[in-house]
């Protein structure tokens, strides 16, 4: 019973693309966080009670700080409230939550790190920490606002796809793989469900070990409310039905264990 909701202090915040914000916070959650985990962020507005699950983009253990990069989902939303906060403000958070990407098995392997849209940010800390033979980072965006791209360049070969074709391959991340004739022994991916479905299909056809980070609407964020379940191939021990909890059993799953 050692963990609790805490007031994190905002170190800095900036808009890095249309509706995309980058925030550094000082928080105890940084002490144990690993790539692929998330934190619950709460508004200070009592009319918006539920936590927003936001993936961790970067971890600075030394300074006990975390970076989150999130999308403002619309007018009068909780994420819009977050975007108006300034350095020095406090933001209630709980975390780190969920399980990160298992990435110790990548030594000597050719790897794809794939992110789509707001699924791009969690791949950054993973790209920093991963040790592998060939790190191929494939990022899918809507348009030329290829946020975080420069930061990824430091850690591997970056390939970009855009829906409007303004930068890189026109289309999605799968089109970028085909166009650049890329190959991998392992895949790590986060993004919208249609993208993950295509990657799961590709990985299974080619017998590639593939980890997917899933997303679903959550309430508690800690595995109690059973809101954010995903269908699984096998009956799991906790639910005794084919429903794993994304917040607690995930958000990272082997592609072969989930039905998406």
């Amino acid at each position, binding site marked *: *019973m*050692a*963990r*609790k*909701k805490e007031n994190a202090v905002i170190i800095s915040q900036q808009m890095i693309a249309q509706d995309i914000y980058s925030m550094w916070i000082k928080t105890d959650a940084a002490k144990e966080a690993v790539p692929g985990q998330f934190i619950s962020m*709460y508004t200070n507005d*009592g*009319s*918006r*009670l*539920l*936590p927003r699950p936001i993936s961790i983009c970067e971890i600075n253990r030394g300074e006990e700080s975390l970076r989150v990069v999130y999308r403002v989902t*619309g007018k009068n939303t*909780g994420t819009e409230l977050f975007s108006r906060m300034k350095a020095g403000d406090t933001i209630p958070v*709980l975390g780190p939550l969920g399980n990160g990407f298992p990435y110790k098995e990548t030594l000597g392997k050719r790897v794809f790190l794939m992110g789509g849209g707001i699924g791009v940010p969690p791949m950054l800390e993973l790209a920093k920490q991963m040790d592998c033979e060939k790190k191929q980072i494939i990022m899918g965006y809507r348009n030329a606002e290829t946020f975080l791209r420069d930061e990824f360049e430091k850690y591997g070969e970056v390939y970009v796809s855009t829906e409007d074709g303004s930068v890189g391959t026109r289309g999605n991340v799968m089109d970028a793989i085909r166009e650049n004739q890329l190959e991998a022994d392992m895949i790590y991916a986060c993004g919208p469900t249609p993208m993950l479905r295509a990657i799961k299909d590709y990985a299974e056809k080619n017998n590639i070990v593939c980890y997917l980070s899933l997303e*679903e*609407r*959550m*309430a*508690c*964020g*800690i*595995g*109690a*409310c*059973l*809101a*954010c*379940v*995903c269908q699984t191939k096998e009956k799991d021990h*906790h*639910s*005794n*039905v*084919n*429903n794993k909890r994304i917040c*607690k059993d995930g958000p990272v799953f082997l592609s072969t264990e989930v039905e998406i």
Partner: protein
Amino acid sequence: MDMRVNIAGVEWKNPVTVASGTFGSGAEFAEFVDLNRLGAVTTKGVANVPWAGNPTPRVAETYGGMMNAVGLQNPGIDVFRERDIPFLRQYDTKIIVNVCGRSVEDYCEVVERLADEDVDMLEINISCPNVKEGGIAFGQDPRAAEEITKAVKKYAAQPVIMKLSPNVTSISEMAKAVEAGGADAVSLINTITGMKIDIRRKTFLLANRTGGVSGPAIHPIAVRMVYEAANAVKVPVIGMGGIVSAEDAIEMILAGASAVSVGTANFYDPAVTVGIVNGIEDYMKEQGFETVADMTGIVK
């Protein structure tokens, strides 16, 4: 000053429990809150066989609250008995098992199988708005509610709390019906049926289309219904619905609740219940109340 309450012959160390479905069976919350501090833990509803629940999305935020249509996903009574009861027994708190079903037989089977288990009370959920059969079907018709209470009571070894729905014309009538059926206590309110539409995607936010609204937005409705029910029956009332603070809980007690359940607020802060227990204690000291029973229903 004495925080203990007696609910149908079972002594809780304080009047605070958690609302079924918001707390699992306590295991996930144990990391964040000392379960020994709670008067009782009310478990997620359990049925005779595992239930897969509804498709996702199962939750949506609403102004001052949320909606859910989880659909009573649960692992079934076998896993519950092996895993959840022994887990909760490690703590010094009462165990209230919430029971759900699709037919009278389903409910009775679960209740019978709990008879020789080390649990303290049963809460019968006849008010879930999110499952088609069972659940709400029993909770909106006084005669059906009385009948199922009678049936369950035949098999129950522990005191039976009937959990009532607010989606009725007269909560007093429902409370009287289950009392007549032999209920040892009533708990209310379950969630209020609602609907939310995504205006961009032009469709329902929840896969189930409708869901149960909970959270502080519904608190005044819950207080009113607790008041009405408490004035209609002699059995104890466990009050719930939008409690997020000690003040909200005290309102419910003054309206007639002998104990309270905290639900949606657990999602806002997993340790919220402990603050509510402490806040009730502070209020009793400040106001000179010796017992919780001294406060119950004094607003007439």
